[in-house]
């Protein structure tokens, strides 16, 4: 995987911080859409060389939270500090310039544009100088093809409009792009949702690698089996509020699973599944295990 610095024109802060440094800190942050309070009083931090997992039920406010970090939405309450400086990210471009790359849940692709143009959108590789500076099309096609192949996606043609790709293929493009351009912080909103087993494995490996390279990673998932192996810290959201921030050392996979599923409420479901599917069903067992 060759990376030229020329390929990352928007990224000025290209060097990851020392492991453990707090890159992003949020204090009592909140977000309202009109009268809808999607998030309130959330405090946590993203550290270099660590994977922070954000967990929570559907509609808990996870995506809202990361959209604030990514500069896609401005927060309405609380404080956001980047490198210790209070900041309001006015646009995703501002975040990208600080080295924060994001995979959005809705992927942020332009359906009618070819795959390779989407891959490099906003960070195009050019050659030539002055008024004759033009896109280095071949290089961009080559890189996007090979980065996707590395994720196990063998595209027929990177000139295909991205809107005609399958859901998983599209998600892989978004992930490969963020991984390729993420310099200091990598934010991934349910990156493995539409992915097959193989591709999910690759994404988890990418996350681990990015962490090892000293990047701060924010990882959202509904799958405790994906969160636990790579996560260093777990933040749980429920109905827009933070339920706390737990280091990995303080929890087991089972605790995590049960916490994600909402504990007690699951019990009845597990029982019901057991009777529907039979007691030996792995799912029923899993559920039972989760509710202890």
């Amino acid at each position: 995987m060759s990376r030229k610095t020329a390929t990352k024109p928007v990224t000025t802060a290209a060097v990851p911080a020392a492991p453990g440094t707090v890159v992003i800190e949020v204090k009592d942050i909140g977000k309202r859409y009109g009268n809808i309070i999607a998030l309130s009083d959330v405090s946590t931090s993203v550290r270099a060389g660590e994977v922070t997992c954000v967990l929570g039920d559907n509609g808990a406010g996870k995506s809202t939270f990361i959209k604030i970090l990514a500069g896609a939405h401005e927060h309405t309450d609380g404080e956001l500090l980047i490198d210790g400086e209070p900041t309001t990210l006015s646009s995703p471009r501002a975040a990208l310039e600080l080295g924060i790359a994001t995979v959005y849940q809705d992927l942020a692709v332009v359906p009618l544009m070819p795959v390779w143009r989407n891959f490099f959108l906003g960070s195009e590789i050019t050659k030539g100088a002055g008024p004759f500076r033009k896109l280095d099309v071949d290089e961009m096609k080559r890189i996007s093809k090979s980065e996707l192949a590395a994720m196990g996606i063998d595209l027929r043609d990177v000139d295909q409009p991205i809107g005609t790709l399958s859901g998983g293929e599209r998600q892989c493009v978004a992930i490969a792009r963020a991984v390729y351009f993420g310099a200091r912080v990598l934010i991934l909103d349910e990156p493995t949702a539409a992915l097959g087993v193989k591709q999910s494995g690759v994404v988890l490996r990418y996350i681990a690698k990015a962490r090892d390279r000293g990047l701060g990673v924010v990882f959202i998932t509904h799958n405790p089996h994906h969160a636990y192996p790579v996560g260093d810290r777990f933040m749980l959201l429920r109905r827009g509020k933070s339920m706390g921030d737990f280091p990995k050392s303080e929890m087991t996979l089972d605790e995590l699973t049960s916490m994600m599923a909402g504990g007690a409420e699951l019990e009845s479901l597990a029982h019901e599944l057991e009777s529907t599917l039979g007691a030996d069903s792995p799912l029923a067992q899993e559920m039972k295990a989760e509710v202890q």
Partner: protein
Amino acid sequence: MATATAVDERIARTSTLTKLMKRPEIGALAAAIVIFAFFAVTTDTFARSQGAATWLSGASTIGIMAVAVALLMIGGEFDLSAGAITGTTGLVVGILTTEYGLNVWAAIFVSLAIALLIGMVNGILVMRTGLPSFIVTLGTFFVLQGVNLAGTKALIGQVAIQGLSNVPFYDQAKAIFGDAIDINGSAAGGQLRISVFWWIGVTALATWVLLRTRVGNWIFAVGGAQTSARQVGVPVFKTKVGLFMTTAGAGWLVGMLLVFRTSTVQAGTGVGQEFIYIICAVVGGCLMTGGYGSAIGAAFGALIYSMVNSGIVYSGWENDWLFTFLGVMLLVAVLLNEWVRKRAELAR
């Protein structure tokens, strides 16, 4: 892990030709050829050098605007003030030179500055207010239409510029914007307007920008999915304001081409033309919803429009039915266009 396999069993077949067929302008090209052939066969003059010179000249000014409007439409916006700007810039030059004795070149630069300013105002209004550009530029259009009329009347007491050809250095500017080149050695053999070269130049430049520069990438992106574009770091504001300024700049160029061709401008010049530009862009394969289209296509669209207009005249059909013919031809052209494009899609 393998990167690219030479032959992929999941692809039926490909060729360079079919690759070409995927371009958005292919349908417009086919329609243009058919219409050319039709009039070339059914009329005497259409395909002769004098005839061709006439419809090329007609296509050139519309075409320049259509190309600029196509860029804007690919970027997801409309500019209804585009027609009125051609009038405004022409009037500014005419009034400043004939009434106030300003040097022609100075007047030309003043009008360019005014045009760019109008474009910038359009762009900033659209981006800052979040209002649809259709309605914002409609407002600007009305304002300009009124200013063109009332301002001209107030300053020179009539609604058309007269006597421009007598101002000093007029010939210099005419050589650049208004000249014509004899095709067959004499004016009677047909004269190719210099505007045709401007048109070709603008089309080539726009195509290059769209397909080979970062800005082109951004134009497609802001038109295709503005939120996504913003999320991946495309400077949406700058791109869109730039597009509005480009359209206004093209309006200025066309204003100059018109004023130095006929040496007159009327207060009503350009009013109503804005929709013709949009029509040409759409005939040329641009989507009304943005994110798709081509500059060459818009140029073909203008060519089709102008050829149909001239062809009807050469055919000697009853003038009352002009619009009916125009409508039928337009429908035929876009249907053909669509048919070719669909075939190309399937065969690609």
